[in-house]
């Protein structure tokens, strides 16, 4: 089964064609550059850009796949959670496409997309490398790579989410915890801005931290005791205070501050993920979202868990259409709950 899938929940416009929930035939993503100027996402700007970019990207995906629309079996689009104006563009385009082509329309929860990014591999159909590199986490994923074993604990961390999810089986999710204030990626963005680094902050902090001492400055751990929820605003405030103090003293050792911040945030994320994995006796841990590309985070989690860790390659960690196509396939295969078709900016997991 081939699904043409659309993602427009935040600031990436993505269209992909995915076969049987795993094989990426085409995956086109356009990042919105306008937000690099503002250093944050302006919802109205994001929605305008999606509308401009979506149809050309859909055409590009079909070209990359060497396919025509009539060779597709279903249309999928993210219907939430996300920025309402942005979601509406992708979902209405997708519903129009589906109605006009007499194909089923599958609404997808964006978070489930991040989960199912761990099922995807590229098959070299589009001139890219055969198999999907895992960014220093072992051999490339191929058709032979086994699917992650369930149940699993999933940590989705990006500029928009910090969610800890228990996946009991296909389409059976339970939210264990989430951020009560900033998303993890936002904390990276804000600290990066504070240190005069670029946007998005995740890769910038990781690069800057490479030469730094992670134990240079003690910072509060970004967590709440007893619960699986996260809180990053206290850590952010502590970094702000630290930087102001260092500035007053005349010098900010950027590498040391970046490394100390990165350590504090990754330890909190890793600790809760590992604790959830142990408590629920899961058979694997999955990561998703842009911050999952952070190498120290992955190493920190792997060090603390006894089960395999799955991380999509960086390109599939950030928002993309292929993950929506994967989630849509498993929605259709495991119809345990109703498939949504209406857009909601807040949407619970299935």
């Amino acid at each position: 089964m081939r699904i043409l899938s659309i993602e427009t929940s935040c600031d990436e416009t993505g269209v992909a064609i995915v076969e049987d929930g795993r094989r990426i035939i085409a995956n086109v993503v356009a990042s919105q550059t306008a937000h690099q100027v503002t250093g944050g996402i302006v919802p109205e700007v994001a929605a305008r850009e999606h509308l401009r970019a979506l149809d050309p990207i859909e055409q590009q995906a079909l070209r990359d796949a060497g396919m025509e629309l009539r060779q597709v079996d279903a249309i999928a689009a993210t219907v939430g959670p996300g920025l309402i104006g942005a979601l509406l563009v992708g979902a209405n385009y997708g519903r129009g496409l589906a109605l006009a082509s007499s194909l089923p329309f599958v609404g997808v929860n964006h978070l489930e997309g991040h989960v199912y990014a761990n099922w995807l591999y590229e098959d070299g159909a589009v001139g890219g490398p055969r198999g999907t590199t895992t960014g220093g986490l072992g051999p490339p994923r191929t058709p032979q790579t086994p699917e992650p074993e369930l149940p699993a604990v999933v940590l989705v961390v990006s500029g928009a989410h910090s969610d800890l999810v228990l996946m009991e089986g296909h389409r059976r999710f339970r939210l264990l915890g989430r951020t009560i204030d900033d998303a993890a990626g936002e904390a990276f963005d804000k600290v990066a801005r504070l240190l005069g680094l670029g946007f998005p902050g995740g890769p910038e902090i990781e690069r800057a931290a490479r030469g730094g001492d992670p134990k240079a400055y003690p910072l509060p751990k970004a967590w709440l005791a007893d619960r699986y929820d996260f809180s990053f605003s206290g850590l952010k405030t502590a970094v702000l205070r630290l930087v102001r103090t260092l500035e007053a003293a005349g010098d900010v050792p950027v590498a040391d501050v970046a490394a100390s911040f990165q350590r504090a945030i990754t330890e909190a994320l890793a600790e809760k993920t590992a604790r959830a994995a142990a408590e629920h006796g899961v058979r694997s841990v999955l990561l998703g979202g842009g911050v999952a590309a952070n190498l120290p985070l992955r190493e920190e989690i792997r060090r603390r868990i006894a089960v395999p860790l799955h991380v999509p390659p960086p390109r599939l960690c950030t928002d993309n259409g292929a993950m929506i196509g994967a989630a849509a396939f498993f929605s259709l295969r495991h119809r345990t709950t109703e498939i949504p078709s209406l857009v909601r900016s807040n949407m619970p997991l299935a």
Partner: protein
Amino acid sequence: MLLALDTSTSWASVALFDGRTVLSEETWHAQRRHADELFPTIERILGHSGVALSGVDRLAVATGPGSFTGLRVAIAAAQGIARGTGAALAGVSTLDVLAYPHAASKQRTCSLLPAGRGEFYAAFYQDRNRSWKRRSPFIVASLAEICAQIGTHTLFVGELDDAAETTLRDLLGPKALFAAPASRMRRAGYLAELGWLELEGRKQTTLGEIEPIYVRQPAVGGTFAQPFAPPPRDDLALGLPRRD
């Protein structure tokens, strides 16, 4: 066969038009539910007329000015349908749709739609050299600013509540004329006629070129860096240093 879609404001409308007759039309107060109600309405409209979407070879969509999010619902849907069926797509200004049924009156006409913050989107239509058409750019301004440009009897159409009507009467006195409530409304049947004319003898535009008439730029000052997380609650941040 042409399908016309309009979700420009809290009012929405869908119509089916065969080039001579409006076969079916539905106009409703969607408030903020356009996205939930648009597709069921499209299917109902087609069903009423026994027309399959594959039989629709033209589309018209209202492009505003209006609610940015609302406009994008119908435009994105129209782009998707056009991509799926290969139908030709025309974008028509929502203010033009409002004025169109009054063309025969040759009256100087002003279309108004609420733009928020006490302002209105407006455009002026007038007969000149036997041609009645839009004679102004799309404006966004207060009613007082709009009326400052009016020196003669003007027919007002569009979405005007009692307060707006009173303001216009106060500002213009007897020069302010008001169309009957039903003929002030926006109906997709008129959008369909305008779209049909627009597509006659014009070559296909790129679908991505059909976009809302924004008039107003987005407020970039207030960034929205936290789209998903719930608002911060300091009392929940146990064990953390308090904010300064």
